[in-house]
């Protein structure tokens, strides 16, 4: 139909590219080798992120296979013994639960105030302060837990009998650390609730508290859940606070006033010791690390699913 007698566009002397003679004028046909090289290198940069994930798995799996050839699986998933991991999991669970008890009410309260009550100007002022709290390095929070929360807040003000290191103080400070995470993501979820729902509720005679608690909160629930789950994942993986303030001894206890070692605390302690590469203790570091990675991976996947759900709602 359209024969090659027509001019082939403003091609600058690079010669006709393959196939340009038969079809209609192709606007994308001109081959540009440099563009292709650039695109390829950008794609490599993007695929690095996937390579990192695989790298994590490979870097962890190799020492872990050695570990399980040295120590039976039953000794690892045991409650007692040198290589038992369950007391560490229990320690992580304890500090994380305390952290969530602190962070969920405070984070949700802050988010509700910012999205439902604060004026635009106040929000602009208050949000950066909350974000600063997220920027404080975790080793600083560890110092704070050890030298302020335990002696001053817990022992002097609240009169709780606790030792120098304990799960309670580490958990509370961990909770303070994840308040900004919970608050900022929940606020996004609240803001995403359409204005018409609020207006409907107010028009029916509800006051702002009723509107917030019975209309906005249920409507934003999956987003709020995602925020809590992400906060949970950060609390599980946090190292320096628990390494300093939670204690350095495995302890399968239900009393939050006791010192308890967590998974990350164990890893920090083992890495400081002089364990030669390939020794059982060195390999156990990676086994605990892999378990930690898998736990946070599952938590993150749940969080991503929840976020997807609340994005689809409106």
């Amino acid at each position: 139909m359209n024969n090659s007698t027509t001019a082939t566009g403003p091609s600058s002397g690079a010669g006709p590219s393959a196939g340009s003679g038969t079809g209609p004028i192709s606007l994308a046909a001109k081959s540009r080798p440099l563009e292709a090289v650039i695109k390829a290198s950008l794609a490599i940069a993007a695929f690095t992120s996937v390579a990192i994930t695989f790298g994590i798995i490979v870097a962890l799996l190799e020492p872990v296979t050695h570990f399980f050839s040295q120590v039976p699986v039953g000794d690892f998933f045991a409650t007692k013994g040198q290589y038992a991991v369950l007391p560490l999991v229990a320690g992580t669970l304890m500090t994380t639960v305390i952290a969530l008890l602190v962070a969920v009410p405070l984070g949700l309260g802050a988010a509700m105030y910012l999205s439902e009550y604060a004026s635009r100007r106040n929000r602009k002022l208050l949000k950066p302060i909350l974000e600063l709290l997220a920027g404080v390095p975790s080793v600083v929070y560890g110092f704070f837990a050890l030298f302020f929360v335990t002696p001053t807040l817990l022992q002097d003000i609240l009169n709780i009998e606790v030792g120098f290191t304990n799960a309670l103080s580490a958990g509370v400070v961990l909770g303070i650390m994840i308040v900004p995470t919970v608050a900022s993501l929940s606020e996004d979820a609240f803001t995403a609730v359409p204005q018409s729902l609020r207006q409907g509720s107010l028009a029916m005679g509800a006051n702002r508290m009723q509107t917030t608690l019975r209309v906005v909160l249920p409507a934003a629930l999956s987003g709020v859940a995602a925020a809590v789950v992400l906060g949970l994942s950060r609390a599980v993986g946090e190292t320096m606070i628990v390494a300093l303030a939670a204690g350095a001894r495995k302890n399968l206890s239900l009393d939050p006033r006791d010192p308890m070692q967590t998974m990350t605390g164990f890893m920090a302690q083992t890495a400081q010791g002089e364990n030669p590469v390939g020794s059982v203790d060195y390999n156990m570091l990676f086994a605990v690390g892999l378990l930690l990675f898998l736990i946070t991976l599952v938590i993150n996947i749940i969080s991503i699913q929840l976020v997807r759900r609340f994005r689809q709602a409106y």
Partner: protein
Amino acid sequence: MSTVSNVAVKTARETVQLTAKRSKEQTPTALIFLGLLWFSLFFGVAVLVALIVDTAITGWPRFDMNLLTNYDSTLFPEKTGFRAGILGTAWLMVTTAVLAVPLGIGAAVYLEEYADRDRWYNRLIEVNLQNLAAVPSIVYGLLAVGVMAALGFERKGIVLGGAIALSLLILPVIIITTREAIRAVPEEIRSGSLALGATVWQTTWRQILPSAVPGIATGTILGLSRAIGEAAPLLMLGIPLAVRFDPTGIFSEMTALPMQIFFMTSQSQIEFQQAAAAAIIVLLVMVLALNGLAIYIRNKFQRSW
């Protein structure tokens, strides 16, 4: 732009009118609820103030030049200093930025300007990025151990090892914020450039990236401010807690400020705790300065299209 804000103002006014009858808002429960919300918001502020004041008081005896210019000293704890840590942190930050920023921007440009979102491998990158952003920092330390072993380094506690760990850690932050900055550049600019005959790369390089620079800079600085206080991945690499020489290059052994703070916090002598408190103030000043710079850039150069 103006119509949007008009609508916002209008809805705000309507809400005010609907809630104008004050009596319903002032029942005891409603007031208690409001009080609780205030409390949860200001709890965070109170913690920040308590943290800074308490640490500053503890560290007060150590605000002297020795803190910045001396090396760590176990013999004279009252004169111990953070010279090696501060210089080590500076080396770490520069190397981390050099490693992470080009990679992060490249990945973001690919995902925003080139990638076909319906392809499975591009969706894989998306999901993977969300996951990586929430991987614990200590796991990145273990990954860096593996990378350094694969590269054939015997000693892993060197600047390069720490920088690899930290750049892996902040890569997702940089990619996510850069993508947002690129996405904020309006489609008309792209269409205009492409219509004039520019290629995709020419459009990206000459139009999109210059417009997105403030956003990219903000993201990079926020990423670095996260990296500057991280100690857990460095701990995994076996970066020493105390060294008594300046780092001289990327293959030099080093320590970092948060590592020294961790080390001195775990010592029992009160002098070390005072030194740790004073160093925390130094670290907080660095973090706050970086955050402030990011906010300044965001506000100063933000363009409304």
